[in-house]
């Protein structure tokens, strides 16, 4: 043991003498772990929320029985229990508190299946309080804060009902209130009525459903993935892809610093072996050293990752809420598994990055081979190999594009494209430099190009990292910019009405409409309606648009027949969203059958419109036709045409008259601002990760240059000895770094545009179902180029300054000592 400790101490003494190397190694590991685990924390937080939501919905994770109407008699529950069915009742409804509409869930804690995943939890002592009137109303802390109430408060519902005392239940989803079933029946005025029955674990033989409930109840299979998960999958895949990219860029740093450290320690390793440290002991200690460094860095990385996640969480939560209605609590809560996974990824990342070095050390012969490396040949072989690999990866990318149909295939293609480009980069640089070498006639420039070529292998990993980071930056930047430009125009057409109203119920809506008709400033009341149904097994929104010039003039259509709005009036035609068109491969002239309460409703597709940001498929039909086919459609939503200067007074008057708040009354400008805000936040996360990645690439470049700088001296010393000043040498070094960085950055631009095209035409279409027009933004590209060169300059400056200031004696020493 003490032998191992001594050997470890000797190995570690290297870092004490080279703290900069240690720092870069740790920085690489920390940033890799931090970015990856930060993204994982965000994903985990969101997934937990979906689970909670699914469980609270009494939802899709559990098999259940549902009726044909909204509720069914409680007697069915008792009959089924007495026939051996392990069912538990749930009643669901909505309750208004101070203008907010919240979901009320009535549950029966005694029969509630234990396997209903993250069911709300209650202390044993509180169970009695929960079921005994007045009972308790469980809410999440967020809901409590939203209601501006305190624990124990007994708020009044809008209809004057006194609600049970509120109690915070940390695991609950925001916007949901949970009470005992008996209390729910009272609050919702649904005595002896239930919404659904959750089916628990099998308890032995049971009678057939048909024999007990006839066809009053229908069995619904449990669903492994919740609707929310399906909808948000693409968003999380996006995050994960970025996390992974950052992780690999981080590993580039680790790889280069570990590579250097091992290279420098090879003589030490030989001496250790000569002094009698066995190969096995040395390898064990080398791995132990690496693992302990990785553990330290992993923990630090996790802490950083936590802060990254905490910083990004509000944006992520906002986008998920805005896009999908998914409620994510703003407080980060992490499972132990996250910490473990983070440390594990750090350790395995370090081992992967150190793989080549470790193998080299393990195979290290005790006797140094005396002949110098034939670097030229080796490099040529290496370049050939990499180019071949790049070619293979490009072919794979092509296959993904042609054959792949999923979002994953889209990302795989993107990854293959980037990887291929990165692999090809050294060969391209080599080509450019050797052209330069051939073109150069004077000795110094010739040496410049030749020496740059020799340096390629050392610098290429960092340059590859830079290329990737830049390309992704260009790609994402272009996509985001394209998006916001398209979105703004689209929103202008889409939000054609001036004021949007959402009444509490049909009665209030009718009152409002009557009141509004008497107001002169209201030019038109545009009724709107929305029904939810199914099409080909997936949810479908049916939007009712009134026959009004507001729509025919402004509503943006991607393509349509001639005079679509006239055709729409007949009630047997529909405009469909781009998402639906792409998902079901539908085009103009096709006919579809929409399931409606009165039987299937056949409609002809007469146009396709963009519906950015809506995860569901949608069709738009004539409003009158909608209300005929879906008689139950609430008629609570409508728009108003109002002269712009009259809008504020009208809003004030309406708020006063009907006691409305901002949630059910909004003018167009507010709606637009809100929509834009949601989309901006969606891409804020992407942009932030993007910046992190670029930063990490900058560090990668810096560390590579620093590590190279040391091994450069022997090459520079002869030049110095033949009379080139240190300052001149430094300038040459600077020029060399900047020129390879420039070539790399220039290559990154077209690659980035290709990435943007992939994101817009492949990934986005697969993730969200819509495609954006492709724009190029030259100013943005120039800016990025500048940033990249600046990063390279910063990274190159430090070693160059060191070189310029180096004491001549040091150069003499190097010249004298190195072979």
């Amino acid at each position, binding site marked *: 043991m003490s032998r191992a400790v001594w050997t470890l101490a000797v190995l570690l003494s290297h870092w004490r003498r080279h703290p900069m190397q240690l720092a870069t190694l740790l920085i690489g590991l920390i940033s890799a772990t931090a970015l990856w685990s930060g993204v994982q924390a965000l994903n985990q937080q969101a997934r937990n929320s979906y689970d909670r939501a699914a469980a609270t919905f009494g939802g899709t994770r559990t098999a259940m029985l549902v009726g044909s109407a909204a509720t069914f008699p*409680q*007697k069915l*529950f*008792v009959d089924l*229990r*007495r*026939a*051996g069915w392990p069912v538990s009742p749930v009643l669901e409804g909505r309750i208004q508190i101070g203008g907010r509409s919240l979901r009320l869930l009535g*549950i*029966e*804690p*005694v*029969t*509630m299946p*234990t396997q209903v995943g993250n*069911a*709300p*939890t*209650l*202390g*044993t*002592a*509180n*169970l*009695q309080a*929960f*079921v*005994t*009137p007045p009972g308790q109303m469980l809410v999440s802390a967020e809901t409590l804060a939203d209601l501006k109430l305190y624990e124990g408060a007994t708020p009044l519902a809008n209809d004057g009902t006194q609600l049970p005392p509120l109690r915070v*239940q*940390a*695991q609950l989803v925001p916007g949901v209130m949970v009470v*005992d*079933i*008996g*209390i729910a*029946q009272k609050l919702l005025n649904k*005595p*002896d009525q239930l919404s659904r029955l959750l089916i628990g674990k*099998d*308890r*032995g*033989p*049971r009678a057939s459903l048909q024999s007990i409930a006839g066809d009053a109840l229908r069995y619904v299979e449990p669903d492994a993935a919740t609707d929310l998960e399906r909808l948000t999958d693409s968003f999380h895949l996006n995050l994960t892809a970025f996390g992974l990219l950052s992780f690999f860029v981080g590993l580039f740093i680790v790889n280069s610093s570990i590579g250097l450290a091992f290279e420098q320690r090879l003589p030490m390793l030989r001496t250790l072996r000569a002094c009698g440290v066995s190969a096995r002991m040395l390898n064990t200690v080398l791995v132990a050293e690496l693992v302990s460094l990785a553990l330290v860095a992993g923990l630090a990385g996790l802490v950083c990752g936590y802060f990254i996640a905490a910083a990004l969480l509000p944006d992520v939560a906002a986008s998920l809420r805005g896009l999908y209605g998914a409620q994510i609590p703003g407080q980060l809560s992490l499972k132990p598994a996250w910490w473990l996974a983070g440390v594990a990824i750090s350790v395995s990342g370090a081992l992967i990055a150190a793989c080549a070095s470790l193998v080299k050390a393990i195979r290290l012969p005790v006797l140094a081979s005396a002949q110098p490396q034939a670097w030229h040949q080796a490099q040529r072989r290496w370049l050939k190999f990499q180019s071949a690999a790049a070619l293979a990866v490009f072919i794979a990318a092509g296959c993904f594009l042609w054959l792949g149909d999923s979002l994953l295939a889209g990302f795989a293609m993107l990854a293959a494209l980037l990887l291929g480009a990165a692999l090809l980069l050294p060969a391209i640089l080599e080509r450019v430099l050797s052209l330069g070498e051939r073109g150069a006639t004077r000795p110094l420039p010739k040496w410049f190009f030749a020496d740059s070529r020799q340096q390629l292998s050392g610098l290429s990993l960092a340059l590859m990292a830079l290329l990737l980071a830049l390309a992704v930056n260009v790609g994402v930047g272009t996509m985001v910019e394209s998006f916001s430009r398209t979105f703004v125009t689209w929103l202008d057409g889409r939000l054609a009405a001036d004021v949007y109203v959402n009444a509490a119920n049909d009665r209030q809506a009718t009152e409002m409409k009557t009141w509004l008709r008497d107001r002169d400033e209201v030019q038109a009341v545009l009724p709107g309606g929305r029904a939810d149904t199914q099409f080909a097994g997936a949810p479908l929104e049916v939007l009712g648009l009134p026959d009004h010039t507001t729509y025919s003039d402004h509503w943006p259509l991607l393509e349509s027949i001639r005079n679509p709005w006239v055709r729409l009036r007949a009630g047997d035609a529909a405009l469909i969203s781009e998402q639906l068109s792409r998902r079901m491969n539908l085009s103009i002239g096709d006919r579809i059958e929409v399931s409606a309460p009165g039987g299937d409703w056949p409609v002809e597709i007469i146009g396709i419109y963009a519906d950015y940001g809506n995860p569901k498929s949608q069709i738009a039909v004539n409003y009158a036709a909608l209300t005929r086919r879906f008689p139950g459609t609430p008629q609570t939503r409508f728009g108003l045409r109002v002269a712009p200067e009259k809008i504020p007074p009208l809003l004030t008057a309406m708020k006063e008259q009907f006691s409305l708040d901002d949630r059910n009354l909004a003018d167009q400008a507010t709606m637009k601002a809100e929509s834009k805000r949601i989309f901006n936040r969606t891409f804020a996360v992407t942009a932030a990760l993007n910046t992190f990645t670029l930063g990490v690439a900058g560090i990668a470049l810096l560390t590579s240059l620093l590590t190279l700088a040391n091994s450069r001296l022997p090459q520079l010393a002869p030049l110095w000895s033949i009379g080139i000043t240190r300052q001149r040498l430094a300038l040459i070094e600077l020029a060399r770094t900047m020129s390879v960085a420039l070539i790399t950055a220039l290559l990154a631009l077209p690659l980035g545009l290709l990435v943007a095209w992939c994101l817009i035409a492949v990934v986005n279409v697969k993730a969200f179902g819509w495609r954006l027009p492709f724009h190029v933004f030259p100013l943005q590209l120039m800016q990025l180029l500048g940033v990249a060169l600046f990063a390279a300059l910063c990274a190159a400056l430090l070693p160059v300054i060191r070189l310029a200031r180096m004491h001549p004696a040091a150069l003499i020493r190097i010249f004298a000592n190195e072979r």
Partner: protein
Amino acid sequence: MSASGKISRRAFAGGALALLGGRAFAQGFAGLSETADGYAAVVPGKRFVFPADHGPHPEFRIEWWYVTANLKDAAGAAYGAQWTLFRQATQPGPALEGWANRNAWMGHAAVTRADTHRSTETFARGGVGQAGVETAPFQAWIDNWRMRGLDAFDADHVAPVELTASSTDFSYSLRLDADRPLVLQGDAGFSRKSDRGQASYYYSQPFFKAAGRIVIDDKPADVTGLAWMDREWSSQPLASDQSGWDWFSLHLDTGEKLMLYRLRQKDGANNLFGNFITPDGRSVEIAAADNSMTPTSFTDIAGRKVPTAWRVAIPARGLNIETVPLNPKSWMSTGFAYWEGPISFTGSHRGVGYLELTGY
């Protein structure tokens, strides 16, 4: 929130229903020895009326319907079956309609063979019909488990009845007949549990003859034998210093029946109570100081040491027997776990019976 459990059957068992106790839950559990404020008190001199007293007594805190059966199949292999329905009030006051009912129900069922013991439980709230007891016609049920009066049901005999229960890996259906009326335990149905007033109302039907079918892992066996029903209700059956009990119900081969139990006190002292029932149904309290129950063998089960074999002596009756369990691993792994299983005995008398051990 780490201290919280789930709202679930389990938590409910740990909370309200565990208080139910029954004989099975006298584990020094606070609920059983809580003061009975607000609930009706058990006093001597009650006149029992049937079938009314077969039904629930919601003014009392706890109550149970408890059947055990010693059975044999055609080849002579021994079986045991247990069926129990517990009721507990969660709050004093009359039982209300619907979910506000204030009564919780729990069912336990088990079957035992020399090589197998299976047990299960289920829970329900009163007031909606998932569980309950009705007197005319007589039926006690929870989910699809039932004790149901058949045609020609005689309330004084509590017979004939059909008894069913099922789980994923066992089920049974038994018909119970009795040619003699039920008997009152203790002093005319008043069963004293301590010197400080803890008591219950208690009657039994020890003369059931049982016949039916037990299915274990889809393998059916037609069985016949003897069965015993206990009915008991109370508001505070245990004193605060009592930690558990060891309870026998024995069918002697002479046609006599013996109900005997020992209440263990935390200070190590024990109280013995029991009734000797003659073949013609006369029930006599036995409370002699020289009666004794002594464990002779212990079984390690579920991390505890449980006395599963006993020597029982009642010198005044000339009774001196050794009991052995049919299956020493008759452990009820329910929310509140206890040992309950069929036994047989030899010595001055031979016969079969049931043993219940709680608070270990």
